[in-house]
C-alpha cells in the first residue's frame, strides 16, 4: 500500500515538474507574441476591408470604430456580427457589413460588403463558401471578376426587380451552368442593401464610446 502511495506521489511530482517547465515556456511565448498576433489579425482584417472600402473613403481608425450588430434576417446572420464604420473628416462615408447568403449550392456563402453613405455599394467580397470548385466558385475574386460587378450598384439605380441574374430577367451576369450561386449572392446583397436603408441612421450613430448595439 505504501509502495503504491509513494509511486503515485513520485510520478505526480515528476510530471508536475515537467509540466511546470513546459507551462512556463509556453506562457512566456504567449505573452511575448500576444500583441503581435493581435496586430496580425487586425492587419489581415484591415486588408480585406480595404479591398472594398478604399483608403480614400476614410481617415478614421476604422478598425476601432465598430459596432455590434445582432443577428438579422435581412443579413442572413444568426450570430452577432461587427460593422466597421468609415468616416471622412468625421462625416460617415461608408459602413462595412457582414452578410450570409444561406442558399448557395453547397450551403452558406459569407460575404462582406461596404456600402457608401449614399447607399451605393463600394464593394463586395466573398469571405468563405462551399460552392463547387471549378463551377460555382467564380464568385471568388482571384477565380473571376464577377463579384466586382456589384461595385457602384445601388437600390436607387436598380429597382428591386432588377436584383436578379439575367436568366431570371434581372441585371446581373452569371455563368452558364451555375446560376444557383449568383442567384444566392445577388439576393443576399440586395437584402443587405435593404437592411442598410432601414438601419442607416443607427448604423452611423456616434456610438464609438458607448456601444449599445441595435435592436
Amino acid at each position, binding site marked *: 500500500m505504501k*509502495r*503504491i502511495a509513494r*509511486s*503515485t*506521489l*513520485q*510520478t*505526480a*511530482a*515528476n*510530471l*508536475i515538474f*515537467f*509540466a*511546470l517547465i*513546459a*507551462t*512556463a515556456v*509556453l*506562457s*512566456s511565448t504567449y*505573452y511575448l507574441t500576444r500583441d503581435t498576433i493581435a496586430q496580425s489579425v487586425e492587419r489581415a482584417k484591415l486588408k480585406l476591408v480595404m479591398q472594398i472600402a478604399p483608403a480614400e473613403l476614410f481617415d478614421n481608425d476604422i478598425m476601432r470604430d465598430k459596432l455590434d450588430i445582432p443577428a438579422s434576417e435581412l443579413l442572413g446572420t444568426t450570430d452577432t456580427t461587427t460593422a466597421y464604420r468609415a468616416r471622412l473628416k468625421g462625416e460617415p462615408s461608408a459602413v462595412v457589413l457582414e452578410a450570409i447568403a444561406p442558399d448557395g449550392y453547397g450551403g452558406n456563402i459569407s460575404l462582406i460588403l461596404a456600402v457608401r453613405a449614399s447607399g451605393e455599394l463600394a464593394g463586395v467580397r466573398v469571405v468563405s463558401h462551399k460552392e463547387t470548385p471549378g463551377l460555382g466558385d467564380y464568385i471568388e475574386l482571384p477565380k473571376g471578376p464577377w463579384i466586382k460587378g456589384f461595385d457602384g450598384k445601388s437600390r436607387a439605380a436598380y429597382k428591386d426587380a432588377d436584383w436578379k441574374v439575367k436568366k431570371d430577367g434581372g441585371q446581373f451576369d452569371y455563368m452558364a451552368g451555375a446560376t444557383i450561386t449568383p442567384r444566392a449572392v445577388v439576393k443576399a446583397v440586395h437584402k443587405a442593401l435593404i437592411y442598410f436603408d432601414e438601419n442607416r441612421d443607427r448604423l452611423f450613430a456616434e456610438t464609438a464610446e458607448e456601444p449599445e448595439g441595435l435592436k
Partner: protein
Amino acid sequence: MISALWVMIGISLVLGAVLGYSAIRFKVEGNPLVEKIDAVLPQTQCGQCGYPGCKPYAEAIAKGEADINLCPPGGEEGIHKLAELLGVEFKPFGEGKGPRAKAVAFIDENTCIGCTLCLQACPVDAIVGAAKQMHTIVASECTGCELCVEPCPVDCISMQAIPEDISTWKWPYPVFAIAPVRNNPQKAEAS
C-alpha cells in the same frame, strides 16, 4: 501566467497520480507473444538464426532484438507468417541466407566409430546408439538441422536430399511450368 501554472499543476497532479498508481497496481508479467512466435517457427532447433534454438529466437523477436528474416528452415512462408503476426512488413532473406532443400542426415555405418558426439549434438534426439556402438539416424525424426555433421570426428555424416516420390509429390502451381512439361509445351506460357 500564474493561473496557467496552477491549471497545469492540477492536470499533471491528477494524471501523474493516476499513472503512478496504475503503473504499480496494473503491473503484469510474461509475454504471450513469445508462445505465438514460437508456434510459427519450424522447431528445427538448428540455431541458424544465431540463437540456441527456436524458443530463444522467438524471445529475441518478441523483445524486438532480432529481425524476422533469420530462420532459413522456416522459409519465406515463415517470414510472411511472422510479418503478419507482428504487423510488420515482409523482409526477404539476406544474401545467400535462404532455406536449403529438405534433407535428412545419414551416417555412413562403415565409418562411424560410435563416439556419441553426434548424439549429443542432435537437438531432437533423432540419433540412436551408444558409446562405441554404431550410431544411426531415425530418418522420420530428423529435422535436417545439420548440427550433427560438424561434430563428427570422422566425417561420416552426410546430408541426403529427400527424393520426390509419389507420396511426397505435390501438384504444381498452374501457371509455372515446374514439373517437366510432358504434354504441350505451349501450355506453359499460357496467359
